[in-house]
């Protein structure tokens, strides 16, 4: 009753076929992702349209404008990719843990602490040689992100303490600690809102296509995404991840390293989230300030669930959500539209990503009931 009952991941991953060629496997996986993700996305658009229509906006016009703001010109595509970068990391992080059945909601905390650590170290990099000046802050972010998840990870792996609540609580603990340490130690002088100093120029992740904002961080994210895909599929621990995720008790009986898997899953998700926060700090915002993460950790969860942990699906989902974020930020320049409509869309997708739609089955159930009632 106190929450020690442990839960699995909120949706089941797709089965992995053994020996189909990579190309066709990717195609079928993509098809499946489209099928799973289609219903939530369409429902979210419908609910968004309802909200828009009730408040006197033309939904089609708004959606059209969002689309052109997201992908209309090369510079808008660049902005969309910049918005894709942070949630790509958090989505991979969530998927990584969920494959092992470890249900973390703490990526948000890792992202925040990683960002703070990278900003603080990055602001001290004035006299450090070039490449090192980027690697040191990122390393700090990696460690910080992992540290956030250590206590929930150990509690879950060794004593079966429900990781959902502990990781959720750690988000708030980290936010509080981050706010306190910025206020007490790292406050930049002469700033209206509480934030750290900007990172030095040599610690910034270079932009891929200046003046656009997309940075090398996107490449790091893609590398981690590919590493996730390869590792899940071809490494021993990756196999154990999938086994523990789908049948924990059976895996334990088979002698798989359940504790190692669960601890690695939770701490690994923290590490990836931490790198994400670090890349976001060094690549885009160049400092840590209050509201550093715009729910990126939770958006990542939604993407991972929509994609059913499939790597290609994660990439598509991250771009979709990134498009919403970047278009939402600029669309209000053209039409008088509160940016909160984007939250409505994203949250609805998140809710329906885990919903099971069983309307066809309902009909079968009625038929079966009618069968029983017949004498």
């Amino acid at each position, binding site marked *: 009753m106190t929450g020690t009952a442990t*839960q699995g991941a909120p949706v089941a991953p797709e089965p992995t076929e053994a020996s189909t060629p990579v190309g066709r496997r990717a195609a079928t996986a993509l098809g499946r992702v489209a099928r799973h993700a289609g219903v939530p996305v369409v429902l979210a658009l419908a609910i968004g349209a309802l909200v828009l229509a009730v408040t006197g906006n033309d939904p089609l016009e708004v959606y059209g404008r969002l689309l052109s703001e997201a992908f209309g010109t090369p510079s808008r595509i660049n902005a969309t990719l910049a918005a894709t970068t942070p949630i790509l990391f958090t989505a991979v992080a969530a998927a990584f843990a969920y494959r092992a059945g470890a249900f973390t909601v703490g990526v948000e905390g890792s992202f925040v602490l990683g960002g703070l650590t990278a900003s603080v170290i990055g602001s001290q990099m004035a006299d450090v040689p070039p490449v090192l000046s980027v690697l040191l802050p990122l390393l700090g972010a990696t460690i910080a992100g992992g540290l956030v998840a250590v206590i929930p990870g150990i509690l879950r792996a060794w004593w079966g303490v429900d990781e959902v609540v502990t990781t959720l609580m750690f988000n708030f603990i980290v936010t509080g600690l981050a706010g306190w340490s910025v206020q007490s130690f790292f406050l930049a002088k002469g700033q209206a809102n509480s934030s750290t100093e900007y990172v030095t120029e040599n610690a910034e992740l270079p932009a891929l296509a200046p003046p656009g904002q997309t940075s090398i961080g996107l490449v790091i994210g893609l590398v981690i995404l590919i590493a996730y895909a390869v590792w899940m599929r071809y490494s021993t621990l990756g196999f154990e991840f999938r086994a523990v995720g789908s049948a924990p008790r059976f895996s334990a009986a088979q002698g798989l390293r359940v504790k190692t898997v669960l601890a690695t899953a939770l701490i690994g998700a923290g590490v990836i989230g931490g790198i994400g926060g670090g890349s976001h700090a060094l690549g885009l915002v160049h400092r840590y300030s209050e509201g550093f993460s715009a729910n990126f950790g939770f958006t990542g969860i939604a993407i991972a669930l929509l994609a059913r942990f499939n790597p290609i699906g994660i990439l598509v989902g991250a771009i979709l959500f990134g498009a919403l974020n970047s278009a939402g930020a600029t669309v209000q320049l053209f039409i008088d539209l509160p940016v909160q409509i984007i*939250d409505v869309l994203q949250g609805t997708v998140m809710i*329906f990503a885990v919903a099971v739609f069983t309307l066809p089955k309902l009909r079968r159930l009625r038929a079966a009931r009618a069968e029983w009632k017949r004498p």
Partner: protein
Amino acid sequence: MIDLLLASAITLSVPLVLAALGGAIHRRSGTVNIGLEAHMILGALIGAVVSGATGNWAAGALAGLVAGALSGLLMNLVITRLKGNEIIVGLGYNIVMFGVIGYVLRAVFGVSGTLQVDGLQRMPKLVIPGVADVPILGALISGKDPLFWLCVVLVPVLAWLLRSTTWGVRLRATGASEPASASLGLRTLAIRDGAGIVAGALAALGGVALSLGTVGLFNENMTAGRGYVALAAFYFGRSKPLPTALACLLFGFFDALQIRLQTVGGFNADIISTLPYIAVVVVLAFTGIRQHYRGARALS
């Protein structure tokens, strides 16, 4: 000084107690309600708007209650009927609710963030003659709003309902084992929906306590994570009404202390705000480890 601190601790814990009791009931039926924050902010908005429109705080509170009940039902239907994972649905529901309210504030009311409702009637402060001047006791029970007294009544009533009524026993049975309860013919989904309605309604009343209590206006950030503190409280109080309410009092006291120290200076508010969450991790770790070793012994 201590009187002021106690009085503000009580005032600050009223919204927490209401939301946490709702969450506790929902938890006993087997669902962790992450959406308390959303129900609270909805209750705060509806309460403020209706109180302004009617000029009557009771009408505002009632409207907030009804809105919260509907909101609780809506969220719970996704969990029970569409088999959505309660944590994800709750997190998503919070995002949607804050999105909708932020959108409506700007698109319909034309304000960004704070809504000053004309003609809003705040809840009365019930000063008890005679007691008001007694030190400590006066600060504890005099000059409180009606929702404080509702809390005082709710704690024993809910404890009794859970322990001794058919509804309570069925609710707890559903929470303990849904398949077993279903096999005995209980309508477990309906029972869980009922608990979800109660959770939404009580959490929304907590929101009403915020908007019609001390300040008398609505702000889209006025819940400030209280739904999550309430979550922490019912975990801390193991979903039993009295311990949950006491946990809320403790957290309310932290909150009052933090505001107090802020004016005095010297200690950081952010650190104190993390205390409820740290407390929950410690309690979960402690009970989890204890249960783990008990279970291990029982098996061997």
